[in-house]
């Protein structure tokens, strides 16, 4: 298991390097001159040139990249062009809201998704199945921003139960995480259903029944854990979906997270900020998937014992 862990951790490195290059190039392809933006609209060409020099934007791309990587390794993500503060400092405050929001969303979407999926699979072809799957298909068919706006209309404006947006107490989490998690819950439900249905056909489930075990035990002890193995991998991938979704959702719910920061930074061509944000988004995704992989190994003794 230790070996496996180390192997997986080391395996992430090439991906990270590739991502850093990709992000770096990608950002530089976007039209819009950051020096111009920093200088402001009414700055002279000379001013802009000066600022470009100061920001190191006039150097060859590969030098810029190397400097950028050097900086990262020293824990220096650069200075935000917009606020002129260290990027790390800016992101620090924004990281937690997004991270907690995604965790919240993934938590409840996994719980509900699994529940719906299992109930549907076990009651295949009955009304529970149809209801569950209809809800799930609807979940992935709704535009999330629309859902968000509608939920605010209903739960905040009409009923006055929940705050319309902002970051703070538990109540603040409910609507954004529901909106963000709806699609993922739906995907998980559908996946769980088919995964459970596959497992139900396995020989060892028949063995378990042949022992005279109760349905409940068969489902939870023998089916569930095996069905979980493929689901866990899928949940990891869904995390990327959540991170992306947070960009839209944070706009709708005025959530002070990385997503809304990213939109701002893109508008401002705040290169160091965008780079770092995307890097952190990707890093988060990779780490989560790493954890998922390890969890996968824990669930699957065949891997953890090698």
């Amino acid at each position: 298991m230790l070996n496996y862990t180390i192997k997986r951790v080391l395996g992430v490195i090439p991906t990270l390097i590739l991502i850093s290059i990709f992000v770096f190039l990608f950002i530089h392809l976007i039209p819009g001159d950051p020096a111009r933006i920093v200088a402001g609209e009414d700055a002279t060409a000379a001013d802009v040139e000066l600022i470009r020099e100061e920001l190191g934007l006039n150097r060859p791309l590969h030098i810029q990249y190397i400097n950028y990587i050097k900086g990262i390794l020293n824990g220096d993500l650069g200075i935000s062009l917009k606020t002129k503060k260290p990027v790390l400092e800016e992101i620090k405050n924004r990281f937690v809201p997004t991270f907690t929001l995604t965790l919240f969303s993934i938590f409840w979407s996994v719980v509900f998704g699994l529940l719906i999926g299992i109930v549907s699979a076990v009651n295949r072809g009955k009304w529970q199945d149809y209801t569950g799957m209809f809800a799930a298909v609807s979940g992935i068919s709704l535009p999330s921003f629309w859902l968000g706006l509608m939920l605010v209309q209903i739960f905040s404006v009409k009923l006055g139960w929940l705050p319309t947006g902002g970051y703070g107490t538990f109540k603040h989490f409910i609507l954004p995480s529901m909106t963000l998690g709806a699609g993922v819950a739906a995907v998980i439900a559908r996946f769980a259903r088919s995964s459970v249905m596959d497992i139900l056909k396995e020989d060892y489930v028949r063995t378990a029944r042949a022992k005279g075990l109760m349905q409940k035990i068969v489902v939870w002890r023998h089916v569930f854990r095996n069905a979980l193995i493929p689901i866990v991998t899928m949940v990891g991938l869904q995390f990327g979906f959540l991170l992306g979704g947070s960009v839209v959702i944070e706009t709708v719910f005025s959530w002070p997270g990385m997503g809304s920061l990213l939109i701002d930074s893109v508008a401002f061509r705040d290169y160091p900020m965008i780079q770092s944000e995307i890097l952190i988004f990707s890093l988060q995704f990779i780490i989560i998937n790493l954890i998922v992989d390890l969890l996968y190994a824990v669930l699957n003794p065949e891997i953890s014992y090698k």
Partner: protein
Amino acid sequence: GCGSKDDNEAPDQGQEETTEKPEENNESAAKDNKDIVVAVQDTFISMDPHDTNDTLSYSAQKAMMQGLVGFDKEMNVIPVLAESYEANDEATEFTFKLREGIKFHDGTDFNAEAVKVNVDRLANPENRLKRHSLFAIVDHTEVVDEYTVKVVLKEPFGAMINNFAHPAAMMHSPKALEEFGKEVSRNPVGTGPFVFEEWVSGSHVKMVKNENYWKPDYPKVDSVTFKPVKENGSRIAMLQTKESDFIYPVPTEQVKAIDGKDGVVVEAEPSIIVRYLAMNTNKEPFNDVRVRQAVNYAINKEAFKKVVCGGYLEKMDSIIAPNTQFYSKQEKSYDFNLEKAKELMKEAGYENGFETEIWSNNSSNVIKATEFLQQQLAQIGIKANLVPMESGTRLERIWSVENPDDAELQMYYAGWSPSTGDADWGIRPLFAGESFPPNSYNTAYYNNEEADKWIKKGIATADNEERREAYEKVQEIIWNDAPWAFLGVSMTMGGRQEYLEGVYLLPDGSLSVEEAEIK
């Protein structure tokens, strides 16, 4: 496209700002505390007024910091930290007599030395402050005595006092400047009614009551929290759910739905923000004044007001708004007249119209306005393609073009708030021959020697009569030349709870919370 803020040049807008002024407030109990929440449209960028160029950041800063002079609700210059001021006739020396006994939040005394530190900071190009341009003209600052300070300019500039009224000229505590260095932008220390408490990026800026405020009885609330809420619907919802006490701006579409309901009041006030569709006068077909006038006649401003602005728009009858200093109403009317428009097009040789592009930013309100303009222009055969641009792209495509002849810009929809309140800032950046992008905002590439002459005259003196005369001339020339389609003057739309009073929107689109009071 008529909200007073969203479709301006923000976030990099030249000048938009706020002033505060003391007023009376009482207490009451419709709300069980005295902490007010103000929801605004965008995130704050900086708390250093010298290095800020967005109105919204100023709105927050103004609650904590103050300048020597400021604006009242009609954009008239009034003394704040200075008791009085005077200028010499050549408009090269400005002397301020300071109010005595004022302390910064950190206990530092406010005096001539403090003013000198601030003005020097602004005037020094090496500091790379965004607002350096307003003070680049300053030659040096002299401390005359403890409470008298004299600012000497390199050359005459008649509108200088308005520059001092601009929030860019608000005063930092010299101690804070020394202590925090560049970090003052996160640690504002001023003389204002509220003391900075915290700024959680993307979430809120919070400030609490200044117990030692120099104006007696103020402030009347315990704290003010500004929250950025981008989504219009969410801002409205916050007002409806009482999560916020004041929101700005209120989307015009929603006014009817909320005004007067559940204790919500919407206030619409005229602003100095003008809405326009700039036409590139440097290029065909808009180098022909007849085409430009035809465009002006072809647009039904009444319908624009109704459809795009929900009725909240004032008529524009000069190139600047009525509340701007030296405004003069123009004779010639550009009221909707399709016949005339078609005739002019025919005269100009464009009987069958032409194809063009309207550039703009990409907020939903702006797109709504440009879509309307597109429909209107179609009436005289102009097929306008809309090109909404996300702001980075817009900057690149407009403000990176060094040579005017390379400009691809044809029509550009935008708004302008001359935040010094002076005609100069309402005209020079937009119409002077020297103001072509990338230097400034003359997106019409309007270049008229006659107009330029008068624009120069207007700032070469501090004499108001002379200035007025100059600006009357300028306004007439440009209005007749129609480098823009003049669409209207925006109204500032603020929504508040009934129990909240004393929060004002100034004509430049900035917000004042100094007199906030819960009734």
